[in-house]
């Protein structure tokens, strides 16, 4: 007897073509990781395991590669962004789900339009309104970690709102009516049922938003001030891994000693993103 094969004959061409497509994507993905690792290796070959890496002084042309200011800057602006954006996004989601049943579809469309606003537009807006406002209120220059974080918060708001709406939308009407029929107030239904049921999807949404904020370059670069300093207060200027990459690709072109520190910074970002992907995978497993 002939063995049963999964694919009928005549399908081999299509199968091979799409298989090749999938393989190419995988290879490109691995190539990116490999290039960054290779760059990092070259960095280590050129400069050894430089003790300055853990320091705060960053002068790549003088063998000083303290990356701490950038890592701290990235973490601070991302924290500000998620802390500011999450309550607002939840507000939008609760309003759309619980308060305005009919207009829901329209608001979703508006939000998915807002998701597509280019990040430089947020940067422009940060420069023309946010930075002057902070300057006016604080008397400092205004270019600051705070400005970077707030620009990011506004930038991730549409995405985070949409994801939160989708998370809350999975809560069945039957549960909501069951809760109300037991004499729960709308607030109690929200807190003890809706938010409790959707906490895992909301966590996943937040991780995705953090990923987007951590990877953003342009909008932050425009308002953060671009100073290599350990953050000492929200109003101080700073830099992040991404903004420093943007600044340094032109200042440290290949061939200049210290160029490969950029590959190392990019590798850190890649590892962070991979960590988030794995984390989202985990949260999905919890929610099952």
């Amino acid at each position: 007897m002939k063995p049963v094969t999964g694919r009928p004959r005549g399908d081999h061409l299509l199968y091979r073509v799409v298989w090749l497509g999938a393989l190419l994507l995988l290879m490109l993905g691995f190539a990116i990781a490999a290039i960054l690792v290779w760059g990092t290796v070259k960095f280590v070959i050129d400069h050894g395991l430089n003790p300055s890496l853990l320091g705060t002084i960053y002068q790549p042309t003088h063998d000083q590669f303290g990356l701490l200011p950038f890592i701290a800057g990235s973490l601070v602006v991302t924290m500000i962004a998620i802390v500011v954006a999450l309550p607002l996004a939840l507000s939008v989601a609760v309003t759309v789900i619980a308060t305005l049943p009919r207009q829901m579809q329209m608001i979703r469309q508006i939000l998915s339009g807002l998701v597509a606003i280019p990040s430089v537009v947020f940067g422009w807006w940060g420069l023309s309104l946010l930075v002057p406002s902070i300057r006016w209120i604080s008397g400092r220059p205004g270019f600051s970690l705070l400005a970077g974080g707030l620009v990011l918060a506004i930038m991730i708001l549409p995405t985070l709102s949409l994801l939160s709406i989708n998370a809350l939308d999975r809560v069945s009407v039957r549960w909501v009516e069951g809760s109300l029929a037991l004499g729960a107030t709308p607030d109690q239904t929200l807190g003890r049922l809706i938010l409790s049921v959707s906490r895992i999807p909301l966590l996943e949404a937040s991780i995705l938003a953090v990923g987007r904020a951590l990877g953003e370059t342009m909008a932050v670069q425009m308002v953060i001030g671009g100073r290599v300093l350990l953050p000492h207060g929200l109003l101080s200027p700073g830099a992040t891994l991404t903004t420093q990459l943007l600044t340094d690709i032109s200042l440290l072109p290949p061939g200049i000693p210290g160029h490969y520190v950029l590959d190392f910074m990019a590798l850190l970002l890649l590892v962070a993103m991979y960590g988030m992907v794995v984390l989202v995978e985990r949260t999905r497993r919890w929610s099952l």
Partner: protein
Amino acid sequence: MDSKAPDLAVRHLSVRYGEQVALSDVSLDLEGGQVLALIGPSGCGKSTFLRVLNRLVDRSLEVRYEGEVVLGGIRILDPDTDLVALRRAVGMVFQQPSAFPFSVFDNVAYGPRLQGIRSSHRLRSIVESSLKKAALWDEVRGKLRRPAASLSGGQQQRLCIARALAVAPRVLLLDEPTAALDPLSTTKIEELILSLRGDYTLILVTHNLQQAARISDVTAFFRQGLLVEIAPTREMFTAPKCAETEEFLTGRYE
């Protein structure tokens, strides 16, 4: 409300959703502690009637109602009726089991916790007595921490009844509680309803005429938003007054 299961009096109740009339000029009386079965073709307004009694109907869009509904002395259509208190007094069980995605225990304890009961000892005794009343205790004892979704459909439906009973209501609304269940589970729910009769006023929407005949004291037949006939169940099923009712009961309807 006093300790006796409350009486229900409905006078000239009309409900419309926008332009669509769901109930028009319905009047009926029900003595406390009895089982009222609502029968009629789909879309006849029986579910709307049920959702009026705990004002869940307020959630529907563009809903308007008039008339008077008095349940155990409370005029439940008054605009300033306390909906939270009303819904605690009037429990409801839905067609699809609506067990929350929590554990069995947390499902039953949900209502008491809303009322601010924190003591784990009291919660446990409420959960146990409610599950016993719902004839589910023997099947779930020792499994209280399991997710409710791991129970069978019939068990989930009884869990929903236990959950409703845990708030100590005086009235229980049942919206086709056995429509999604197998015959064995249906029998269990029917036995449960009979055991609750007397302590609670029960109002049951059902598509299953035999079920109405088996477990109700009074049957009301609705058609296109009108209450066609209401009578003690035995009378209704043996000698209906209206020709329309007879047609429906004998299956010659539409």
